[in-house]
């Protein structure tokens, strides 16, 4: 019962570690009337042991900062997390992260703390971002009973919206892809994702997808963050 109330009300402020406390205040101050070009974004991606929300967990988090559509390669984040559950064989093949790699990885909460500090009050960008958000929020919920307050937008939703609403976009790129996975899109829109397939390179690709899409929004009347959040809702 207590935990139920805790979930609804959140824990008292004092209980939250400094990094979480600060972050919660920052994100609440977000001004959604701001132009897209003035907004701070963080494109991020996580690699998971699997997609089962109950059993699987984060292996790594990668993120890169943007202001508007400008990517800042100097402001990046990439960390490995010590898994709370067994690595599954399949995910090892995909990510090429093995147990040896993870031995030097850190505790989930440490990494999350740094990640939360890194993102600050920025708007999060992800490809199918709800999955990543769930996996980030679960440990935060378990430990502190709070979730990230950051607003988030989804590049796949944004893409679908452009496909449906902006013929100039499709014309510019000579058609669009119907496959919504990150790599098909990267290929279609001429994004070089680098050789690695890890959380960081995927975050970088996501950031570049965002770069490809946003310039077309002004022509559709999407001028500020509020409108952007509406059409790119996770």
């Amino acid at each position, binding site marked *: 019962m207590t935990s139920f109330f805790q979930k609804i009300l959140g824990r008292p402020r004092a209980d939250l570690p400094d990094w979480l406390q600060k972050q919660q205040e920052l994100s609440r101050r977000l001004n959604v009337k701001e132009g897209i070009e003035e907004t701070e974004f963080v494109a991020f991606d996580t690699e998971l042991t699997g997609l089962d929300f109950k059993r699987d967990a984060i292996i790594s988090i990668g993120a*890169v900062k943007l*202001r508007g*559509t*400008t*990517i*800042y*390669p*100097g402001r*990046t984040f*990439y960390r490995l997390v010590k898994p709370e559950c067994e690595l599954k064989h399949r995910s090892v093949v995909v990510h090429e992260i093995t147990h040896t790699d993870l031995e030097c990885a850190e505790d989930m909460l440490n990494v999350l703390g740094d990640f939360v500090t890194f993102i600050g009050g920025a708007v999060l960008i992800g490809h199918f971002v709800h999955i990543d958000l769930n996996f980030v929020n679960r440990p935060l919920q378990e430990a502190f009973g709070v979730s990230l307050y950051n607003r988030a937008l989804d590049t796949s939703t944004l893409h679908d919206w452009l496909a449906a609403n902006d013929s100039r976009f499709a014309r*510019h790129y000579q058609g669009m892809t119907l496959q919504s996975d990150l790599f098909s899109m990267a290929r279609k829109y*001429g994004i070089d994702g*680098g050789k690695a397939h890890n959380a*960081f390179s995927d975050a*970088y690709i996501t950031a*570049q997808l965002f*770069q*490809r899409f946003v*310039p*077309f929004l002004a022509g559709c009347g999407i001028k500020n963050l509020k409108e952007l959040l509406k059409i790119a809702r996770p």
Partner: protein
Amino acid sequence: MLQEEIVDFLKNVIPFNLLSGETLGKMAADIAMDYSPRGEEILQQDGPPSEFLGIIKKGGVKVFQALDNDEEVVLDLRGEGEHFGMLSILSGDRSRNNVVAIEDTICYKVPRKTVLALLQENHEVNQYFIKSFFVNLLDKTYEETRKAYTGGTTGEQLLFSTAVRDIVRAEPRTVALDTTIQQAAADMAAQRIGSLVVVDSAGQPLGMVTDRDFREKVVAVARDVAAPVREIMSAPLISVDAEDNCFEALMKMIRHRIHHILILENGRLLGLLTNHDFMLLQGSSPTVLVKEIAHVRTIAELQGTAPKFYKAVSSLLRHGARPHNITGMITELLEKICNTVVDIFEKDNGPGPVPYSLFFFGAGGRHELTLSFGVEMGIVHQDAASPDAAKETAAYFNRLAETLNSAMQNCRINGAGQCLQAANIRAASAWREGFKKWGTGAGTGLDAGFFDMRAVRGEKARVDSLREYLEKRTGQSRGLMEAVAAETLHERPPLGFFKNFVVEKGGGHKNELDLYRRGILPLVGCARIFSLAKGVARGSTLGRLKELTSRHGFKVAEDMGQAFGYLNSQLIRSQLHQAEEGLTPDNFINPYSLTNFERKTLKESFQLTARLYDEIEGDYWSGKVLP
């Protein structure tokens, strides 16, 4: 991670390659990365100064200035590894130029502060930027154009000095003749390429298929994809030799409206060049302007084409073009324009009542038009079947001539007179009759320019056979040969031995010299006479001279070539100067505006002509025959 990528990239970019890895690493930490879709404005003329130096990672931008009359002056095209925005970083007050992405462009942005610090700390980088700027600024003035040209070593001459073999990258992918369309498309998709060369079983290239062929010949007409690729390939192949320079390859691509061209070496397939390769080569503005002019579609669009020619030529000069490259381009573009006009005319009036060919003669026929244009054209058509039909035919061609003349007038590229005169529209038989009279006395309308006639539209053979007829007759009839010599000799070189120049005595061009009529044309005439005598059948003066040297051991021909090139470059530069002053370029130069050195060279050219005249007088002209 990303910073390493930036450092790796900058290591290959001048002048950052001069910096240590450590410095680059520090720099990379400040760099941002941006994306601009094709068409997006990155910097705006007279807008706030750039906050960053843009280094293009992928794609390309156009740097241009907008004039008060809404015209655009393209200053440069910049491609991968090149930069923009430096001028306004240094000045700090405003952006000097518009910068617009012409492809989807990814660029690294180095913040102003970082750039300034770098300039302060690193002497070599500083030198590089200061120098490249200085050069750029001066480039815009005509004086510098001249220096860059005569100096000839500015390092910006890639387009003309680079052989295509040097920029061919990979061997093109090939596909066998009998492959199905579907398989070919699948191959292209799998290899992510836009074209395939179709080869026979022996590996000889026969044709080509590009994305466009699939679009136009398969999808648009719902062709069966199981059909062999042979059915949709574009043939014959358009190719250039590996030793040709890039400009020639580019001209061919423009002429044939193609985006890919094959490079052959001794008939063997060496590689493939695409538009993109030229962008990579240097992205020079001449190509942009050349393309712009080449793509005119309506007569109205032709209005005010002349200034575009001036810009293109000025830019070509800056990039080290030789005079024959420039005259070649001007002629080529005029051909394009004429064809466009006739296309439009035929759309409105239907095709000609009888088959016909349009040809250029004189300078246009030789690919030697300058900025004073003055193209001369003629039409040779099949005989009409009946007197009534003949009347109708005449009316049709009169309308065509009117349209052509007024269109040329409209874009102010007609030169002084009418391009297509009524007297030059004849049936093949009538032309022959006219030519037959030549050399039999005065007043036969002999014009040696017809020896240079070249079809620009319609069946080529119709024009070639007429020209060959003329050439053959010259061989048979001493009278005709003498008449041609007489016509050439009629215009004396404007120079008595070591005396002052002879200049025009009155009229609008008092004290000026018609460089074309009195300097270039005599050389052209001499080359033509020697060629006729030796049976050299080349279309251009330089071509004739080259063959005279190589096949007939004509030593003087080399000198003639040099003089011809010099006079042409002098003329073109003078014309550009006139254009810059807002005048209509003509063939007149003021010898007193030349430097001593230029005057001396000019004199020498004329002296050479005088010697040639002596020779011709001795060998080909008895003094009795009049033109």
